[in-house]
């Protein structure tokens, strides 16, 4: 049977892609962020995932605002990145795992999630940057992904509670998947930031800390925040935390935080990285 080894959450700011292309990992501005990945590399080398299920939000590469799915699950053989129009390098192709994708899609729809299924799906920096951070120099050969896009852009957005439940449904589906795969769950984006309006540059360190503390073992307590309140506390784009909630929901066992890095700022964003281990012995939460 497949096993969920744990979850990684990380910021996906586009300028990280530029910094990597220009080899700036050791510059004083970037070092506090990139050194947070030393542990991630050690952990991934030890845990050896076969597949990563990646919760992210598209920023206008695969989806335009005219047809905007709340939840979309990739079911492609491979996923390409393309020019996103803001000058970050285009990444290499990443292999998909269509059999697992369809297993998850079947389970989600059976579980009353009316998702969009995508047999062709471009992945933007919100997938490629976390992949490059986890496996530098595109050393992700042998790793396959199932991308799951959550609408964090055009309101109304799904609630924190709904995203947690989406994750739980995926977690249960993985637990019932027969092939012996080691599966990593990834949630990208955040933490607090706002790019638009007179409040551009807004960051909320205390609220970020609260989110990081609570997501480990009491994610339900965060579901009390409405999307409106979350935008108020975390900034207009801080709602990318929905991807983190879905990641956490998919960790069906006993969860332990084994790594955290938090640094302000990367571009306009409070940058955060967390590694959560999923220990299988605990009883599973009902959705």
């Amino acid at each position, binding site marked *: 049977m497949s096993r969920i080894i744990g979850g990684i959450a990380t910021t996906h700011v586009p*300028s990280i892609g530029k910094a990597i292309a220009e080899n700036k990992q050791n510059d004083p501005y970037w070092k506090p962020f990139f050194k947070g990945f030393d542990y991630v590399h050690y952990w991934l080398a030890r845990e050896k995932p076969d597949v990563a299920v990646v919760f992210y939000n598209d*920023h*206008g*590469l695969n989806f*335009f*605002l*005219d047809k905007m799915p709340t939840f979309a699950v990739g079911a492609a053989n491979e996923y390409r990145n*393309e*020019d*996103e*129009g*803001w*000058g970050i390098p285009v990444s290499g192709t990443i292999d998909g795992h269509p059999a697992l994708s369809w297993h998850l899609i079947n389970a989600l729809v059976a579980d009353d999630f009316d998702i969009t299924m995508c047999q062709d799906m471009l992945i933007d920096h919100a997938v490629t940057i976390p992949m490059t951070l986890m496996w530098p120099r595109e050393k992700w050969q042998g790793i396959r992904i199932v991308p799951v896009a959550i609408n964090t*852009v*055009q*309101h*109304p957005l799904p609630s924190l509670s709904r995203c947690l439940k989406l994750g739980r449904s995926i977690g249960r589906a993985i637990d019932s998947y027969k092939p012996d795969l080691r599966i990593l769950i990834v949630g990208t984006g955040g933490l607090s930031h*706002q*790019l*638009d*309006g*007179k*409040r*551009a*540059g*807004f*960051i909320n*360190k205390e609220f970020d800390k609260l989110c990081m503390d609570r997501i480990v073992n009491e994610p339900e307590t965060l579901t009390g925040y409405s999307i*409106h309140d979350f*935008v*108020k506390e975390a900034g*207009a*784009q801080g709602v990318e935390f929905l991807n983190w909630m879905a990641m956490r929901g998919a960790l069906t066992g006993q969860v332990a935080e084994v790594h955290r890095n938090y*640094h*302000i*700022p990367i*571009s*306009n964003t*409070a940058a955060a990285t967390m590694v959560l281990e999923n220990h299988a012995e605990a009883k599973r939460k009902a959705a």
Partner: protein
Amino acid sequence: MKQDIPGTIMFDGEQAQKGLALNRMCYSFNSAENRAAFLKDEDAYCAKYGLSNEQRTAVKSRNVLRMIEGGGNVYYLAKLAGIFGLNVQDIGAQQTNTTVDQFKAKLVAAGR
């Protein structure tokens, strides 16, 4: 949707509907060919996408706050800004009426 968070316009249905033409134009800037066509003849390019007068004026004056009021979504506007070599810190400074250095200093201060 309640629009009561200071300095913030939630990108809701009303904004999305108002901004569709502007955002559609910005979405086209994923293509280098389209970016070049915009630079070659901005008026013709904007006309092709049917921008409202308000949106056209905002684009012409490179005024990000006006573009957002006109329904622009910042992820799409960033593609337009990229044509001029501007990033989210440049547009952050413009929207908050500060210099880019002041804007960056404010972000650093938020970490202390």
